[in-house]
């Protein structure tokens, strides 16, 4: 974990209210794992007061990238920063997805990455790592499912394809890809899946989607790692603000997560 001043390389609109930020942050870049996040101070004033947690979307050499949606005042302020400006950033935070165990222990794995809305952000980094494993000769397949309200909210399709993933999309209104919930698409896939390799699900997105995925994971006996969100005050495990109810009691999303095994969570 580092607290650094990272120079903005670019911070540009991708589409709609989605922005892509790249920062010079060599120390953080070196240690980052997919699923980990940054906690960014977006303003030098007291408005907003707290840092904003944003997933690591990609690491390129000394640089680190973030993909974010403008949803409130913090992300708005962030979106107004330009290249050359410096951000106070803490990271990498949290545990990240577990994927190396398979890389070392097994011949390979079939991974299904499921991103709902902004949830695709950390999965691109994961897909990148999986592509790296594949390049080293292991049998890793990565299928990506992207879910969103409507076509305009489908992001990162190209990034995933460029990383060699097969990509399917679902929209609530059917304006793009499968019409319906991403979890229904997942169920379709699992029903017809050939179990040549062990399957693992990695998911990030809205709470209800993750809850549904946990149910699917249990039903099909497929392990799922899910990345949760809670409101964070400190992001480093000190305030006990971001707890989630798990089988081992209340645990901190920022420190013990944000990635949890789906079967650990007590959904209410």
């Amino acid at each position: 974990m580092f607290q650094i001043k990272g120079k903005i390389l670019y911070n540009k609109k991708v589409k709609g209210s989605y922005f892509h930020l790249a920062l010079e942050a060599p120390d953080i870049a070196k240690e980052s794992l997919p699923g980990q996040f940054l906690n960014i101070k977006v303003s030098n004033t007291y408005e907003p007061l707290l840092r904003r947690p944003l997933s690591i979307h990609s690491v390129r050499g000394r640089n680190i990238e973030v993909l974010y949606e403008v949803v409130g005042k913090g992300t708005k302020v962030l979106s107004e920063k330009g290249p050359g400006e410096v951000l106070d950033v803490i990271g990498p935070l949290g545990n990240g997805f577990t994927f190396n165990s398979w890389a070392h222990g097994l011949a390979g794995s079939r991974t299904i990455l499921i991103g709902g809305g902004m949830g695709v952000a950390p999965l691109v980094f994961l897909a990148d790592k999986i592509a790296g494993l594949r390049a080293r000769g292991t049998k890793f397949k990565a299928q990506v499912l992207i879910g969103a309200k409507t076509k305009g909210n489908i992001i990162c399709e190209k990034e995933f394809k460029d990383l060699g993933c097969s990509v399917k999309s679902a929209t609530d209104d059917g304006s793009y890809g499968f019409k319906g919930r991403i979890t229904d698409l997942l169920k379709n896939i699992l029903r017809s899946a050939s179990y040549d390799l062990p399957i693992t699900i990695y998911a990030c997105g809205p709470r209800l989607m993750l809850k549904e995925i946990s149910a699917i994971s249990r039903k099909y006996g497929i392990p799922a790692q899910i990345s949760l969100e809670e409101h964070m005050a400190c992001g480093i495990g000190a305030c006990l603000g971001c707890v989630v109810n798990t089988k081992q009691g209340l645990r901190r999303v920022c420190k013990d997560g944000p990635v949890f095994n789906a079967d650990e969570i007590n959904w209410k």
Partner: protein
Amino acid sequence: MQTKLSVSIGKLKLKNPVMVASGTFGYAEEFKDFIDLSGLGAIVTKTVTLRPRRGNPPPRTCETPAGMLNSIGLENPGLESFIHDKLPVLKKIGIPIIMSVASEGDLEEFIELVKRLDKINEIAALELNLSCPNIKRTGLISQDPEATYSLVKAVRKKTKKTLITKLTPNVTDITKIAKQAQAAGSDAVSLINTLTGMSIDVNKRTPKVACIIGGLSGPAIRPVAVRMVWEIYREIKIPIIGMGGIMDTASALEFFIAGASAISVGTANFINPKVSLEIISGLKQYLSRNKIRDINQLIGSIRT
């Protein structure tokens, strides 16, 4: 210019007057990657109770204008686990550890806690958290001058350690409570704990923290905190540990000038984990720029 930053709180000597506030610094280990913990004046632990406490359901925090609400509900691993797992780590830092304690139930529980802690040398002082607004009860001990007196008095009999009584700002007259803490033998008072507050998600029409009401902290509450330190300073003789919205050197200075002998950094740790050390060096600069040799000369130096 050489400046003296050391202050005394009861029997406790601090090499500098900057500590970190209960509940905002975990058990210190969370901060070790960011700062040299041994540079702090003291560390106040998250409040510990006799038995483990699960605390309140999430969501537990939300942001407010220049502040935040929390309703952690005193989640902590309980006394035994604290002593075994947390204290050894804290001890190694080599600076005074002030242990914040609270009772979930009756006076007896408090006494039991204090008797047990009195024997532990690594604990430099005890801070009595009589003021946590999150335990459901009608009124808090710290809102009642007599109850404050009885509790501090009872605890005082059981320990020779430096005793600090932490005060809640949610009272009509804070000087009354502070005077009772002093009369009962408290070596110092610390203030302010959080102001109770509430915030509503107007689209969902639900409270933003699950417990409905939370504790307001951060720069928003600073004027209230500084006012209370100043009010108390003129009424009591024991030292004051000031806190509430300290974000930087300038805001820390307000508390010293109003009458605090030491200060505690709370919410600011979340925003800048280095802030407490930055304040220590900022204080040195201020003293030498203003040709003040000893921080004790600054305490209560407001010209009114």
